[in-house]
Each structure stands twice: as C-alpha cells, then as structure tokens.
C-alpha cells in the first residue's frame, strides 16, 4: 500500500429521528445533521472544520469518535475499519482518537479530583499500572502548564482557561494519534484564548498529532489549521489549504462567511464590502432540493434547484469546491 491516510471518512451520515405529532403516524422524519461527508486526514495535519450553528460540525465531530453512532458511511483509522467493530476491538482502538469539548465547566466531573479525572482514562483502558500511571499523569499535567499541586484539587478551584488545560491533559494522557477539539477556546476570554491556542499548537507539533479543530471562529481556525473545510447544512461545500481559502474563496457560501468576519483594524474594516446572505438557514429536516445553498445563494441559477453539486477538484488536489458555478481552474 502506498500513501495511507490516518483517518479516512467516506459518505458519513448522521440522521437524528424526530418525533412528529402526538402519535407517530406515516413517514418517519429525520434531521439530517451530517449528510454525506467525506474527507481524509493525514498524520500530523490539523483540519479546521468551520460553519455556523446547525451546520453539523459538532455532530460530525462526535460521530468520528462514535460518541454519536453514525447512520451510515465509513470511517477508517490507519487503514482499519472503525465503523464495523464493537466491544473489545472498539475499546482497543478508542485511545487513538480523543476529544476536547467546548465548555470546561461541563466536561470535567465536579466530584472528581484532577488526579482521578486524569487517571480514569488510563484505568478504563487498562493501561495503568500505578507507578507508571502516576508518572504519566504528572508529565501531561506539567506539559499543559498546571502545577502538580493541582492533582488533589477539584475543578471548581480552577479558572476556565486552567480547566481547559486540564481537559487537554485528559485527552493527551492516552497518547492519541488524533484529537477532535470541538470549539475548545470559544468560552474563553481573548487573553486566555491565546494561551490555550498556543498550547494546543505546541502540543500538536511536539507529539505530531493530527487534529480536527471545530470552530465557528474563522480567525482562530486560520491560526491553528493547515487545511480548512467549510460546512453548510450537513455537507462540506469547500475545502482547501488555509492560505488558499482565505485569499481566494471559491464557494459563494465561503465567500459570504469570510466577508462577514470582522477584522480588528478600523481602517480595513471601513473599506470592506460584505456579501449579505438572504434569509435564514433552511431546516435540516427538509433541506432544499438540488444544491442546499440555492435558497440563499447570490449566484444561484435555475438548474441549482434541481441538481446537487459534488465536491470537485479545483486546481490542486487539496482544493475542492461543491458548486456548479465554479469552473475548475486550468492547471498552470
């Protein structure tokens, strides 16, 4: 086998059944949170997953760990099927892919000391003989910049930023290959946000981790990610290297999204033109026909209402766009 991706996701779908009415008669309805997502993640790569609320980015993140069981599709981890396995086989693979959540106030158990929190994953996976475990726990805690005195303390004794460091330590303790971080800095203040972002970046490089960084904040994603995927209504509409996508976004949604992000510089801000999107995000229960973005797209044509575009290469192999109006770039 030639080049192998660390993570390969094909046509992944997460559909949540919804109740309609008092008695469920007739057809069952589904909320299509993730509706056919495919991507690959290389070893040591950081993929930024961006999109607005309801685009399915968090559902996708949870589905990658099978915290939310995907409805269909396939996930391969280092070439091995991750979707079909269960029981002991699944438990064996799980340490390879770990998660960091948005709200460090909710993701740490208030009744567990930091030591118990950090040891639990080791014990659950039977990786902990006690002296080695102690050493490992202290190492990761030290690495995220928390003093060893913290071990006997409880989460409420820490600030938001410190808690997020502890959550990072918990994800690291199993020595994963992939970390899925879902809005890890969104609840933090600017000055603390920068500390945690830098820590994540350092750790990612040091341990050559792969990371899926989910965020609604494009400025943050640009800082940390190598490649970016933009989601809209359960689908990836564009993916490219960070420099390309910010310099020259192709999909009309990506263009609108980037134009809406405020830049902290009054001179630049006064010159900018915003692409305003019409209307509201359509329901993911009954998504529009054809291209799901056609209801708000400034350049939609009649045909966009009928046919759904696929992600197609745009120039480089790293750049893919899902839009009929984007003509593939002639190769140089």
């Amino acid at each position, binding site marked *: 086998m030639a080049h192998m991706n660390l993570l390969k996701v094909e046509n992944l779908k997460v559909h949540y059944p919804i109740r309609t009415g008092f008695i469920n008669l007739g057809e069952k309805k589904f909320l299509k949170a993730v509706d056919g997502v495919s991507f690959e993640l290389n070893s040591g790569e950081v993929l930024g997953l961006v999109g*607005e609320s309801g685009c399915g980015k968090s559902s996708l993140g949870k589905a990658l760990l099978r915290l939310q069981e995907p409805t269909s599709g396939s996930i391969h981890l280092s070439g091995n099927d991750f979707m079909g396995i269960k029981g002991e086989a699944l438990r064996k693979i799980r340490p390879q892919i770990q998660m960091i959540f948005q709200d460090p106030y909710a993701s740490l158990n208030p009744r567990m000391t930091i030591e118990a929190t950090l040891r639990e994953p080791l014990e659950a996976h039977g990786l902990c003989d006690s002296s080695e475990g102690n050493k490992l726990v202290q190492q990761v805690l030290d690495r995220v910049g928390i003093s060893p005195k913290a071990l006997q303390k409880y989460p409420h004794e820490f600030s938001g930023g410190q808690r997020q460091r502890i959550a990072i330590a918990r994800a690291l303790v199993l020595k994963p290959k992939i970390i899925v971080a879902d809005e890890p800095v969104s609840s933090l203040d600017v000055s603390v946000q920068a500390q945690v972002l830098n820590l994540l970046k350092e750790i990612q490089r040091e341990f050559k981790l792969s990371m899926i960084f989910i965020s609604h904040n494009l400025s943050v994603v640009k800082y940390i990610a190598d490649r970016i995927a933009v989601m809209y209504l359960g689908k990836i509409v564009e993916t490219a290297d960070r420099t390309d996508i910010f310099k020259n976004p192709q999909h009309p949604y990506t263009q609108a999204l980037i134009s809406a992000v*405020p*830049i902290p510089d009054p001179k630049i801000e006064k010159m900018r033109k915003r692409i305003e999107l019409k209307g509201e995000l359509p329901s993911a229960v009954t998504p529009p026909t054809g291209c799901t973005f056609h209801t708000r797209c400034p350049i939609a044509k009649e045909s966009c209402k009928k046919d759904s575009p696929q992600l197609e290469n745009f120039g480089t192999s790293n750049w893919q766009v899902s839009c009929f109006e984007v003509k593939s770039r002639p190769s140089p």
Partner: protein
Amino acid sequence: MAILEIKNLQAHFHTRKGIVKAVNGISYSLEPGQTLGIVGESGSGKSVSQLSYLRLLPSPPLRIPQGQVLYRGQDLLTLPEDKLRAIRGHKISMIFQEPMTSLNPYLTIGSQLIEPLMIHLGQSKKVAWKEACDALTRVGIGEADKAMKSYPHEFSGGMRQRVMIAMALTTRPEVLIADEPTTALDVTVQAQILELLKKLQKETGMAILLITHDLGVIAGMADKVVVMYAGRVFEEGPVETLFEKSAHPYTKALLKSTPRMDQLQEQIPVIGGTIPDLSQLSSGCPFYDRCSYKKDICQETFPLERKLSSSHHTFCHVEEL
C-alpha cells in the same frame, strides 16, 4: 454637549466573602449620534457599570459608594424611582446579549412590543400596534402583522435580536445601550444586525453605547473606544488612534493576542496570568501582575489620567511603550 456622562462611578457588591469592586471609579461620556465602544474581558465591569445606574441590579448586594451619571445634566443616581422609570426604556433603551432569554416566552411578540409605547408614550393599543408593526418592518421583519401574533420560540436567534432592537427603538431613544448584541449570533447574522444598527443610527441620530469583547466588531462600529479592565478604564480614544497608537500595555497586548483572519500568524503573543480577584484589589494598578512594562510605583498607586491629545488619554505610569 454630552448626552450621557459618567463621572467617577463605583459599583461594589457586598457579599459574604467581602466587597467585590466590580466598577472602581470610571469616567467617560457619550455624544449624540456617536457610537462609543466599551471593550473588556469578562469581569472587567463593562456590563455592570451600565446595569448599576439603570438600577437593573438588586441592591443589596449592589452599592454605589460614589459617582455621578448625568443624562442631559440630571444625575440618574439621585433621581427618584418613578422619574428614572420615565427615562429607562424610553430615552435610554437597552438590548442584551441573549435574545433567547430577554424576551418573555409566554407573551406574543406584539404584546411585548406595544408595552413600552403604551407605558412611556401613553398611546392607545391600536396606535401602539400600528407603530410596533412599522418598527418590525424597519428592522427587516417581513409580514409584520403575522410576526406580532407569534411567540418568541417561533423565531431564530437573529430574528429575536431584530425584535429586541425593534422594541428598544419604538420609543425613539436618544441612547441605545447594546450589551454584546451579536455575541450569541453567527457571523453572517452578526453582519446583518450590525449593519441594521448602523442604518437605524443614521436615521434616528441616536447615540449607541456598544459593549463587546470583540475587537473586530469595535473596529467596524465604534467612533470612540473605552478599554476596561478589572473595574477600571485603562484607555480612551478615537477608534483609529486606539488601534494604531494604543498607549496602554493592556490595550497593546489585547490587540496582539487576537487571532486575525487577514494575517498568517505563526505565534500569537499572549498575556500571561489571569484577571485579579475583584474582592482583593490592591491600591495599585490591577494589571500589575500581568504587565510586561511594570515599575515599582505601579504596585502602589493607580495612575492618574495622562492626556496624549485632546481626545486620547490613558491611565498608565509608563510613558514609553
């Protein structure tokens, strides 16, 4: 003349654990038609300072040991409750961060919208209803009649914030206090709402006091900016000056530590440490522990105002940054 002038305002919370000095002697003023941006991180006192003089916080625990808040020359702090009520929600309106929780889920949009009109302007229900419909149309809500009969849960976050804005503007306020009005919204919706606020300001000439932690929003909206930290004002100046020639170490550090979409950053300089405990403040500068320019004097006394131009001033002992 300034329409709203805050002079040396303090707001303290008396709690069992001691006195939390949320606002610790701040001064600034707002001119008609102007947008004043107030930036600061959580706990800087940016919201409390507004809520305190509008008497929207329970007292006790809140106490205002000193200060003046002058609206058209009259001190809101000493005004009797009924007089204040005639101003609050009428001449000075407020929109809050979370449009989900600031509308009453049990009442229709219509009945909430006509309330200020009937109370403050003494309009009949019929007249108020028509005005409210117009207000909804102005903020970009189509089929206003239908919207008036709907309940808040039937609207998305962006639409609810539009309703809040419509409600705040029906009484034609002179001052609109917008406390993180777009923080809970998606960026494309944020862009719509900010654009709407700008448009309405042009039409009505109201002054906007915009509270936010987002420097990008400030850059696009504010004429003048006040930077707050731990209950103090650190710097005040016109928006361009403040971004280009910031004269306070905190402002400088804050600007540098913000990730920017228009730049390729390899490393963001960080501000080490965390904000101080507001119940245990010293007499010195509250930024002392985190400041990279600190001098001995900073630990002992909080600096006096230092003018850099007629419109730009800072509170810092260090003159060369």
